[in-house]
């Protein structure tokens, strides 16, 4: 019987709590807050918080047009592949110190999974056969190269700090270490790395100063130009979920271990129900604050960069910040 319950539990983990439902709803609400706060910063009333949800369902009800030049299966499958990889990532990241599935090297798996939504955008865009998409795809590739390097260095710095000379890539262990030694961000050497990660998030998600690939006013949303209906909605949903996943990753890497005191002791079938709910809410609140700091504020006060400026910025300033942390951690500060 235990085997049967394990299967049920895993299905619930994948489809309801840290997986599908939680990630999707969380991402959509996060994106809604993002738009609302930008509007308030510009002294507008702004759309309702549920606006991204309405957008998604409206797009789901629209006709899907496949252009003649497009490769149909690839064109239609690309957004769903990106979505699935984001959901898988969400189940690996600890939510409030509780991760659904954990392994020895989650961080490396996440590093690979993180590229899949961007690759899905590239593949889908090039499958659509539009010249606008071609420009967008080439820019998306350059953006990917730009932010991958600092992100890897940030991961290495965290792994070195937590694991010592044997690098530690298990998110569950990183969380346990933070419970014992305080959040990673409280170690002074890691503050540049945290800043670098905060700068990587907007490029990864593709918000304002770094949205070169999807420049709306310039190349008509780049890779998305030919998309319509549900696949377009899925790409918009991917952006929203990616917001939640990236901010969750930030709080798992840098702000773990702050849930330590939360123990209510209420259990149902041996699961600490109330704890998990409270921790999930706190986790969402932290994600919201991180979103407001690194995406919304930056979006409201900046204009879009050119692609070469973006590349230069990431390979000098952001990589520099990440490297400072890595060196400081490596010499044992």
């Amino acid at each position: 019987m235990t085997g049967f319950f394990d299967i049920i539990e895993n299905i619930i983990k994948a489809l309801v709590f840290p997986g599908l439902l939680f990630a999707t709803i969380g991402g959509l609400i996060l994106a809604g807050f993002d738009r609302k706060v930008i509007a308030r910063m510009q002294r507008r009333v702004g759309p309702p918080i549920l606006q991204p949800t309405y957008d998604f369902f409206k797009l789901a009800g629209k006709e899907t047009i496949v252009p003649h030049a497009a490769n149909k299966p690839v064109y239609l499958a690309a957004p769903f592949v990106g979505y699935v990889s984001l959901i898988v990532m969400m189940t690996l990241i600890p939510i409030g110190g509780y991760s659904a599935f954990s392994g020895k090297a989650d961080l490396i798996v996440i590093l690979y999974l993180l590229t899949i939504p961007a690759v899905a955008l590239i593949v889908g865009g090039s499958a659509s056969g539009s010249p606008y998409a071609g420009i967008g795809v080439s820019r998306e590739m350059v953006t990917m190269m730009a932010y991958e390097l600092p992100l890897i260095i940030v991961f290495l710095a965290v792994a070195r700090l937590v694991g010592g000379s044997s690098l530690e890539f298990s998110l569950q262990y990183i969380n346990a270490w933070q419970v014992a030694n305080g959040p990673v961000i409280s170690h002074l050497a890691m503050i540049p790395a945290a800043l670098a990660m905060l700068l990587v998030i907007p490029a990864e998600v593709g918000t304002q100063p770094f949205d070169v690939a999807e420049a709306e006013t310039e190349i008509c949303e780049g890779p998305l130009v030919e998309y319509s209906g549900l696949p377009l909605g899925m790409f918009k949903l991917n952006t929203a979920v990616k917001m939640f996943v990236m901010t969750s990753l930030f709080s798992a890497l840098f702000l773990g271990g702050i849930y330590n005191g939360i123990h209510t002791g209420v259990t149902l079938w041996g699961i600490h129900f109330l704890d998990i709910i409270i921790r999930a809410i706190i986790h969402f609140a932290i994600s919201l604050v991180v979103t407001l700091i690194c995406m919304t504020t930056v979006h409201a006060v900046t204009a879009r960069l050119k692609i070469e400026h973006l590349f230069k910025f990431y390979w000098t300033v952001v990589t520099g910040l990440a490297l400072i942390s890595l060196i400081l951690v490596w010499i044992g500060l």
Partner: protein
Amino acid sequence: MFKKMVAASAAKSPWIYHINTGSCNGCDIELVAVLTPRYDAERFGFKLAGSPRHADIVVVSGPVTSQSKERLIRTLEQVPEPKVVVTLGSCPKSGNVFKGSYSVECPVDKYTHVDVSIAGCTPKPEAVIEGLYKAAQILKEKREAMNK
């Protein structure tokens, strides 16, 4: 459940695509004014889309010059169903001061159905918002008609 959500969202996120068919730019400026903080059409979910494939409402301004006629028809064909066509200003409706010119082929309803006409030279932003809001309601009706 999913169908109910789709039906409920149909009127709440209308994305606009704007085609200028030889307009004097007056109406175009007023349409952009509607999206600025002062009038803020985004509170109804309106958003300016860059590609006709993303559009729900197609806003046509200008008296349809001979050069732009074919482009207008081709662009309208690229918009996925359900779609709503709105004419902005007097030109696409009647030709306005350009009527009778050798290079003008108005009105727009010779080439497509027109759901909402916002008259005026140029219409006030309040009138534009009202027209677009009506268009969003028509969008919802069309979406419901698609289910039957």
